[in-house]
């Protein structure tokens, strides 16, 4: 065995088995505590107010509620996301947390995450009838 290396069996496989078991058990336990919601039967004649999209799309809904042209910001973000390896110069011979050479990308990624979380929060808790801003408290 080369220096610094370990046999996958049992070292790596043990980790995989533990992670798998813990994830499945945690989800099975949480599913007991968090029941899936079920509202009344779908009816096109009864439009709720406000109408909200699925939670993972709420940030886009919030964004386009300011201007429909902001959808192009979402598309630009998606394009940058796809092209990330070609937008930055390869620097390190091994991946590590917060490399100094990638400071700009890291800051942009964290800022985008914070923006998405903030927009999701506003859309989820601070939007009432007619998409008016309401206090979450």
């Amino acid at each position, binding site marked *: 065995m080369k220096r610094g290396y*370990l046999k996958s069996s049992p070292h790596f*496989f043990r980790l995989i088995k533990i992670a798998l078991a813990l994830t499945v058990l945690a989800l*099975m336990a949480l*599913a007991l505590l968090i029941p899936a919601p*079920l509202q009344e039967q779908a009816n096109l004649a009864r*439009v709720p107010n406000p109408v909200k999209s699925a939670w993972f799309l709420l940030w886009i809904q919030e964004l386009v509620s300011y201007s429909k042209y902001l959808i192009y910001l979402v598309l630009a973000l998606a394009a940058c996301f796809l092209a990330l*390896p070609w937008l930055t110069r390869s620097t390190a011979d091994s*991946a590590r947390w917060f490399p100094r*050479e990638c400071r700009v990308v890291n800051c942009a990624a964290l800022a985008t995450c914070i923006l998405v979380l903030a927009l999701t929060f506003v859309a989820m808790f601070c939007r009432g009838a007619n998409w008016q801003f309401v206090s979450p408290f």
Partner: protein
Amino acid sequence: MIEDFLKHLFPRAVLQRNLTLSYTLCLGGLAFTCLLLLAASGLLLLFYYQPSPAAAYPSILLLESSVWGGRYLRSLHRLASHVFLVLIVLHTLRVILTGAYQKPRQLNWLVGCALFFLAVFEGYTGYLLPMDQLALWATQTGMELLHTMPLGGALRAALVPDGVGEPASLLRFYVLHILMIPAALLFLSGLHFYRIRKNKGVLPYL
């Protein structure tokens, strides 16, 4: 035999420092675990779900009221789908913050991006299936968002030819949700793992 096959999917040896949890946090593996759990719970839900506008909601009611463990199974599937998306986002963020997307891993980055978008699409198509008010209007709003995009109108027409929640659109969402997107997710996950192994000599394995 199955154990031997699974062992062959992985390298014989791994770098010791790559097994430290503080580097990968196991996020990709946990997301894949969620995908397997979703497949298992979804497979069981298929025995009761009926993909037609008139029968979908009653079939969910039947599942929740008359099938032993039916309500729990649906809760598990829904919760696992949320956690799956969260874990994929966190895994993507980890890949960015560790610079693991850089060349020569650019192909695997693209595969990961495809997995990310497919996971969101899978969540979206599954949202409609219970056919309750939440499902209908969340899907309708998603379609309005799609419509604001360039070529969104054409995409919308392909996905919902007769309106959200109508027979053809529900059937399309159903087939996409239970067959086409999961198959693509599993195929691309396999490719993702294969590419990680292929690049092992250049960057840390995980």
